[in-house]
């Protein structure tokens, strides 16, 4: 009997304390949930999101948090490691909304992850703002709860192809090399259309399996076709292999070679050393002081703080992730409530200046931004072209043995 009483009171006490703890935290905290690649093959890029989310949240909390009506809330990050496994990441998003009861969702890195994970947001009707997936496939399903701060993958090469038309001599034949995942398939599809409009011929059009490390067969065909330009899309580790093998097999197009990823990343340039020179790339963001921000001041200060805290330089992935957090703060304050549906409507109508860009989402939920064409010149990344030349492009790119 005594025993039972003790047990009952212990349970009651535990329940009461749990209830008390629950109400205390639920009242003044807004939790943002995300599952990001902290380990596994995508860990290298996943860290940008982890660090950008945390830095931005800390900065906003230090400035007083989020104001909803006359009450202030602190932001909290609930971050899980999806180990670069898409299936695990979907389960983790389900866990975040159903067990952890997070208020809103931030995204993972990469289109194939965002494509699957956004379905969880849509199903549970919790808004997700993601800065890691650019594939248009994410936004063509009629989803209402998914927003993205990377510009459409279809148009990644639009500015590069426009620039190619203005170069002298303008490249006429192009080799298009793409990985077979969601993002790169979108890029390749859009690029084919842009090339056709520009009157350029696709002489080699090859798709390779995601994660491939050997490109010698593709490169041999590219060399035989003697093209003016290579437009390449895939992942950073594959870009590294591709460039190294280009040199090994002495493949150099008469004009230029351009890459969707890698070029803006410091780690990438370091790994390649001098071989990175002349490579063209693109970025939707540069750490420019002209991009004003409510919390960080401007993009340059964001980059300085980010580098000081994490010991590596942010690129567009990080800036995009920071803009996702800021989107929620702007939208929640505008909506004046934490109700997911009302915040969703607020996000759809939002328009604010941030360290990343002027954030405004299209009807499908995706931001529209131009890609800045960049080139590695003597080890530094130099912006070359947006709608007109910013700096002189080093063109045509000399052959490997003439550098």
């Amino acid at each position: 009997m005594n025993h039972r009483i003790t047990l009952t009171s212990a349970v009651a006490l535990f329940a009461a304390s749990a209830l008390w703890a629950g109400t205390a935290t639920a009242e003044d905290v807004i939790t943002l949930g995300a599952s990001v690649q902290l380990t596994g093959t995508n860990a290298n890029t996943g860290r940008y999101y982890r660090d950008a989310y945390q830095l931005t949240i800390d900065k906003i909390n230090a400035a007083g948090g989020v104001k909803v009506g006359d009450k202030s809330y602190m932001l909290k990050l609930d971050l899980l490691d999806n180990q670069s496994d898409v299936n695990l990441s979907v389960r983790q998003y389900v866990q975040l909304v159903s067990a952890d009861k997070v208020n809103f969702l931030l995204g993972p890195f990469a289109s194939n992850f965002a494509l699957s994970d956004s379905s969880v947001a849509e199903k549970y009707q919790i808004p997700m703002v993601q800065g890691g997936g650019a594939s248009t496939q994410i936004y063509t399903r009629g989803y209402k709860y998914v927003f993205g701060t990377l510009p459409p993958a279809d148009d990644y090469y639009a500015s590069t192809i426009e620039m190619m038309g203005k170069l002298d001599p303008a490249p006429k034949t192009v080799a298009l090399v793409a990985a077979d995942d969601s993002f790169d398939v979108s890029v390749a599809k859009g690029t084919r259309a842009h090339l056709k409009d520009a009157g350029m011929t696709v002489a080699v059009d090859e798709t390779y399996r995601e994660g491939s490390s050997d490109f010698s067969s593709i490169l041999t065909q590219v060399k035989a076709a003697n093209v003016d330009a290579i437009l390449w899309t895939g992942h950073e580790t594959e870009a590294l292999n591709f460039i190294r093998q280009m040199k090994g097999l002495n493949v150099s197009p008469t004009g230029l070679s351009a890459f969707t990823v890698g070029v803006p990343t410091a780690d990438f340039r370091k790994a390649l050393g001098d071989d990175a020179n002349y490579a063209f790339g693109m970025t939707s963001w540069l750490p420019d002081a002209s991009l004003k921000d409510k919390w960080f001041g401007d993009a340059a200060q964001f980059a300085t703080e980010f580098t000081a805290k994490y010991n590596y330089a942010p690129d567009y992935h990080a800036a995009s992730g920071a803009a996702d957090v800021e989107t929620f703060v702007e939208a929640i304050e505008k909506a004046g409530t934490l109700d997911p549906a009302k915040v969703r409507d607020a996000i759809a109508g939002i328009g604010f200046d941030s360290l990343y860009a002027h954030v405004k989402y299209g009807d499908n939920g995706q931001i529209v931004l131009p890609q800045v064409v960049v080139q590695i010149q003597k080890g530094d990344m130099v912006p070359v072209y947006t709608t007109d030349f910013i700096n002189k492009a080093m063109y045509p790119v000399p052959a490997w043995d003439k550098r």
Partner: protein
Amino acid sequence: MVLAQILLNGILLGGLYGLMALGMALVWGVLNIVNLAHGALIMLGGYVVYYLFTLGGIDPFLALPIAMVVMFCAGFALQWGLLNLVVRSKMLNTLLITFGLDVVLTFTAQLLFSADFRTINPSYAGSNFPLFGLTVPIVRLAAFGVAVALAAALWFVLNRMPLGRAIRATAQNLVAARLYGVNPRVLYAVTFGIGTALAGAAGGLYGMISNLTPYIGASLTAKSFVIAIIGGLANPFNVILGGIFVGVAESLTALYLGPTYTDVISFGLLVVVLVLRPKRAVRAA
């Protein structure tokens, strides 16, 4: 011309594939351990060469023997302290423990080395020379040469040296080997050490041709597995030939079917070998 170049690419790459599989085949054949951590050991070998090159300033090809010694010691210790517990036990036990080892090594590597991309990039890494109108990449050719030389050395040790006789005797008949004074515990550790040293050399060469991250191991284990089956576990040269076979098959697939299908072909080959020559494969295993 394109075909000839692609065949050359396949052969050169295949030699390195063969070297990757060599250590796995040796350990599998003698210790009956299908080492799922083999790819992780290749990865570690790559990092050893990377740091010897970047921090020590040692030419990567000269660093290879040093890395092999380091990896031999690591392999010896691993077998002595851990894997001797499961040697000649049920296949499931060895698979479980080596799988666990793979996870531990991979994540330790991320903690120690971070997920940054590393390339072993000596000044001559991208050099090449023309030969009958073909382009021959120097590092790939050298990697091929090292692979064949190490296979020859392994063959010599196994067939002409007392140590090799002891290794083969232990693999064939443990009791008889013991009666002749072989200490299996030491011998197993030495064998695993040799396998690990070969993996280390393969890792160093892989870092020169491709790039290193803590996560390259899994796909390399899978590739090594396929080649070890195709090449058989008995003769080092057959393993290298198996590697070349897979390398050429992948290159031709990339040319005629498209690069998307290279893995389908290499694992498809595995199935074909198992169907056509099941006895040999099973006996070898």
